[in-house]
């Protein structure tokens, strides 16, 4: 009788304890939108597309970008080109790494919204990736605004 109640108690404690370990796993849409994980567009193509179809979002990002010192701007550009060089599996892993470790992305400690144009808004990502393939793969003008 005592054994049974101890067993019950242990089981119910375990049941309570398990859901408490709520780790912040990534999903296929979070923190990085699915469209960005899967797009085959280049950074320049995506940015040119967003400049046309989500101009206010682009404008705000570029104002923020232009307010950063040159080395931070360079760091953000290098980092996003690196991210886009990854395949789907690599991007998905990166999404997981940033979701589970807030210190994983060093760039974010210098500029919190460094990748806002790419990662923060599913609607913008969807509208941009819908048409990005129609733009030239190399277009440095996307960083001059």
């Amino acid at each position, binding site marked *: 009788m005592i054994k049974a109640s101890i067993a019950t108690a242990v089981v119910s404690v375990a049941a309570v304890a398990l859901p408490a370990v709520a780790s912040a796993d990534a999903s296929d849409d979070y923190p990085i939108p699915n469209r960005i994980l899967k797009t085959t567009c280049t950074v320049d193509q995506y940015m040119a597309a967003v*400049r*046309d*179809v989500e*101009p*206010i979002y682009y*404008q705000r990002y570029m104002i923020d970008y232009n307010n950063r010192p040159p080395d931070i701007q360079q760091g953000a550009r290098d980092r996003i080109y690196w991210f886009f060089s990854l395949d789907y599996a690599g991007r998905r892993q990166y999404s997981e790494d940033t979701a589970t470790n807030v210190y994983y992305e060093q760039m974010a400690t210098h500029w919190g919204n460094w990748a806002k144009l790419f990662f923060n808004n599913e609607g913008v990502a969807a509208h941009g990736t819908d048409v990005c393939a129609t733009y030239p793969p190399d277009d440095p*003008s996307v960083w*001059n*605004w």
Partner: protein
Amino acid sequence: MRYAKSSVLASIMTAAVALAAPAHADPDVDFANELHTYGIYGPKDYNAWIGKITCQRLDNGLDQDADMSAKFVFRQLGKDATTAQAWAFLGSAIDSYCPEQRPVLAAVAQQ
């Protein structure tokens, strides 16, 4: 006597405050009002952003003529917008935010 003087002063000051009140000059409000005459509504700030970005695209050469500019505007208006409304928007935006770009519109008229 002293009381009368101060009450005159007070009424002058009241008049000065009352007159100053309607002197607001917000180009975004004027722009929105003009858009309304073309049946273009939507958030004032959104339309102002689009108007200013339209000018910036003309200034930096991303849109090289009024045709490209009108296409950009058309894409930002609602689904029910017409081409005529896009051109009306473009004309108002140039008048409001970049009058130096008026020749761009004139060039289309001469085609």
